[in-house]
């Protein structure tokens, strides 16, 4: 009983946060649209509905890492602590979405392609993306508030971004088992999604983006508070000496 209480307490109080609650409600609405409103695909059947979580998670990952790239560049120009913290928060939330994106792909591949994983260009480049940003977060985790670590991770954040256009274009440049883009600038008009599916996908992308910003904001605030506390502790130690 106490264990359940211990597990539930943080969730309860987290839901007390208005924005998080809004994101949760939107996510439930998204489930409703995906499962009850969107039509079933003729060839794949219900399993095709993974699209509405796979593609938005991919979009949010790319977006999150784009923010990391911008903030790391800004950090190098201005040496801004704020940019460094936004980059850190964005990379962390981004890796969460990339993990979801990769796992949903793996779960989708098994029933449709017949294997969990194959060393296809799209899959390989995505895994590399995941590893690059894991490396980024690990450098941060091991180095704490060391200035050198901030610079190191900013270098990873900038260089790592060059992999993302490769991930995106991998289905166009190389022979791959992965389906081609169905929406967006690189999509082939002959693959266009039927309207209800496209609307569902756009709605899902919107919901995931909102959720991303909510999580990013919470993480950023925590990082800022940690920084402030560290500064105060540092000052009081100084005064005592």
């Amino acid at each position, binding site marked *: 009983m106490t264990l359940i209480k211990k597990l539930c307490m943080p969730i309860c109080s987290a839901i007390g946060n208005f924005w998080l609650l809004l994101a949760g409600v939107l996510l439930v609405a998204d489930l409703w649209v995906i499962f009850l409103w969107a*039509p*079933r*695909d*003729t*060839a*794949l059947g219900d399993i*095709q509905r993974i*699209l509405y979580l796979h593609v938005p998670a991919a979009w949010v990952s790319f977006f999150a890492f784009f923010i990391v790239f911008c903030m790391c560049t800004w950090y190098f120009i201005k040496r801004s602590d704020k940019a460094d913290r936004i980059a850190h928060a964005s990379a962390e939330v981004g890796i969460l979405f990339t993990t979801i994106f990769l796992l949903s792909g793996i779960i989708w591949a098994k*029933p*449709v*392609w*017949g*294997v969990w994983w*194959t*060393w*296809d*260009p799209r899959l*390989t480049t995505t*895994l*590399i993306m995941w*590893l*690059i940003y*894991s*490396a980024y977060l*690990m*450098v941060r985790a*091991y*180095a704490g508030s*060391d200035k*050198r*670590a901030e610079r*190191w991770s900013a270098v990873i954040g900038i260089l790592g971004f060059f992999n993302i256009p490769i991930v995106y274009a991998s289905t166009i440049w*190389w*022979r*791959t*088992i992965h*389906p*081609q883009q*169905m929406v967006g600038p690189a999509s*082939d008009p*002959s*693959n*266009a*999604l*039927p309207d*209800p*599916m496209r609307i569902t996908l756009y709605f899902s992308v919107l919901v995931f983006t909102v959720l991303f910003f909510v999580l990013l904001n919470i993480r950023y605030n925590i990082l800022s508070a940690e920084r402030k506390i560290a500064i105060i502790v540092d000052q009081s130690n100084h005064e005592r000496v």
Partner: protein
Amino acid sequence: MTTRRKYFIFIALVVAVLSYFTYDAMKGAAVYYLTVTEAVGQSSDQDTVIRVNGKLVQASFVRGGDRIESHFDVTDDISIMTAHFSGVLPDLFFNENSQLVLEGSFDEESVFQVQNILVKCPSKYVAEEEKSSA
């Protein structure tokens, strides 16, 4: 061990793992799969495991006596290649819009011995009509 040495070791490890993955992905061929025509061109090479992409020739499909063995042809509209597979076929194997990616190697009679079948499904999704009878 200093913190700085820890990063170096860590980053070196990540780079090593990444290079290994890239090498593994590119090994054997610079491309993920060959077309049927390209594969037939090197059918004398029986040692290398390759991936071949083609469409199933529906009429060519024959099941063996024990229901596990299957023989079929795949084509890229230029060449045709005979393949043999023993195992459970994936769900969308017979779907006329899907393509197959076969992993395996040629035997002495130039029959492609399939170890693994992957289905490359259509990129186009089509909404199912509302079922009024359901």
